């Protein structure tokens, strides 16, 4: 029986339009056999949370380079908790100062990938994470 495909929502929260990273990751995860939904630009945390629920994803990947991560991620994590979606793995890729990382992880972000991360490292992380803690299990 074929294994169930891992479902990933790639999202660009906030006003920033720099989507090179989001698009590269979307393609890399798709090439690695995952089901990828890309939200497109300028998504509010509300839009991302409801897209994640609707698409029934295992993973949300947020691409943020604008410095607005504390506000946007905290709000998204609150919305996911309210929807009972704490089993969805939330990842951030982009520019996040070291000083902000601990608070983001405490809020429930599973991992933060900085510039220079290989796409393979992200693929491996997602596979291990989903295998170790399958959603709704």
């Amino acid at each position: 029986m074929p294994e169930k495909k891992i479902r990933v929502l790639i999202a660009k929260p906030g006003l920033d339009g720099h989507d090179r990273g989001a698009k590269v990751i979307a393609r890399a995860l798709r090439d690695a056999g995952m089901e990828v939904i890309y939200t497109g630009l300028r998504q509010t945390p509300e839009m991302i949370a409801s897209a994640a629920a609707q698409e029934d994803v295992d993973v949300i990947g947020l691409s943020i380079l604008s410095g607005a991560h504390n506000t946007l991620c905290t709000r998204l994590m609150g919305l996911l908790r309210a929807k009972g979606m704490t089993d969805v793995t939330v990842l951030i890729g982009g520019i996040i100062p070291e000083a902000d990382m601990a608070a983001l992880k405490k809020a429930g972000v599973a991992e933060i990938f900085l510039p220079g991360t290989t796409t393979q490292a992200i693929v491996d992380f997602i596979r291990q994470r989903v295998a170790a803690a399958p959603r709704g299990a």
Partner: protein
Amino acid sequence: MRDESERKSSPTSSSEVPRKPSPGEREWEGKTLQATLAASPERASDFTTVSSYPIRRLYTEADLAGWSPERDLGSPGEPPYTRGIHPTMYRSRLWTMRQFAGFGTAQDTNRRFRYLLAQGQTGLSVAFDLPTLMGYDSDHAMSEGEVGKCGVAISSLADMETLFDRIPLGDVTTSMTINSPAAVIWAMYLAVAEKQGADWRKLSGTLQNDILKEYIAQKEYIYPPEPSMRLVTDTIEFGAKHTPKFNSISISGYHIREAGSTAIQELAFTLRDGIEYVEDCLRRGLQIDDFAPRLSFFFNAHNDFFEEIAKYRAARRIWQRVMRERFSAKNPRSWALRFHAQTAGCSLTAQQPYNNVVRTAVQALAAVLGGTQSLHTNSLDEAWALPTESAATIALRTQQILAHESGVTNTADPFGGSYFVEALTNEIERGAWDYIEKIDALGGMVAAIERGYPQREIADAAYRYQVAVDSKEKIIVGTNAYVADEKPIEILQIDESVAQHQAERLRRLRADRSNDEVERRLGALRKSAAGSENLMPYLYEAVKAYATLGEICDALRQVFGVHDEAAIT
């Protein structure tokens, strides 16, 4: 329009003619080279630029078959401008050292501007925050978390007055990186200039105002392409009449490259954008030589030294041909492509950030050897945040060292006549023409954008590059090789007090101004937007009544609608 005679005048690309090495070169290959390769093979089977463009082992006169120094190189200050647009280049005047800066409130950035001018910087360049770039006031719901983060927050003429406090606009040149709301921000700038008593005819600087590359690459668009193009043409028309020394547009390849394009794509898409703007102005009834001298360009200065130099040289050669043959421009000032360069932000590494000083120096050197008119050098900490004052100072010093210590400013186009640089210039030019012809065939750039053509070409190139980096086919020092443990560096932090400060300022502004006057001006703006008049005078009156950026952009949203792209991955 392009015709047969035009195609014939194209420099012969070395790739079209079979390469015929000289007897001397053949002998070298047979004896010296073969013996060496037999003893020790080369490091790789293929050598390519950062854009994956193939580079030969050696360039000789065999790579310049059909190339004519008279026709294809010429002299500095003369067509085809391969050697630069000024006869004396940097012997008369150095390039403008223009460091892009902006963060926090208008007051914070005003302080940084005055510091940079005191350090010997010769022009200002304003970075706006994301809400400003997207036409939202600082207190709009969409602005939450973004105020003052990527640049300075400007919501009204009052903020603009603070931004340029004690900076005489008649004496400095100012570049403003703003696109969708460019006409509004420019109206604010002109209003500040008027209040300072500066003569508009003497104002000098550049408005980025390039909406096409937003749809292609950076994605900070508000309105659909058609009304956006109208706003651009309105500013070009207004500028041609009232601000003869101000560049009303900076047609930008920088962001196309940052989005992951190759050097050839950057060049081709930028110049084809330029053609699109010119055609729109001609349709409006403007005369080519009345506005073409004020078109300026903006290119990236990436890592691959020779590819970048060849790109700038090819840019000038293509544009003069476009101007003379496609648009029949008669004024040599219309033919000469003037450009600003910025070192490649996307090449900076978060790891071992001090290495970025070296990268930036090499990139800046390429821009200078390629004949740039102005230059921004990135700071070492910009893979993490906006630069601290000390990092920004090193970036400026890098330019000053190139200008005053390296000796590269002593002569025009030092690489002119180099087999390699001339051959690469020809090849990049040929590659760019191929793309330009393809986009012509698609019906122009707006049509190509609507079909997702440039977006897809760039996304493909970006992905190929990532694969090459992941597989270590391309080495990035400190990131995928020579990795070391390190401590975080000190970075600039912008806190949420900027947003609170801005919200309070806006509350006071809305209480103090005449809201009847604002409503009247916004009503007039909506009415003219629904027609076909030039909008600049209406925008000017609205900003002078202290209508906010968000209110003005909303008025236009009501008439024009908003743009939404189908995401292309």
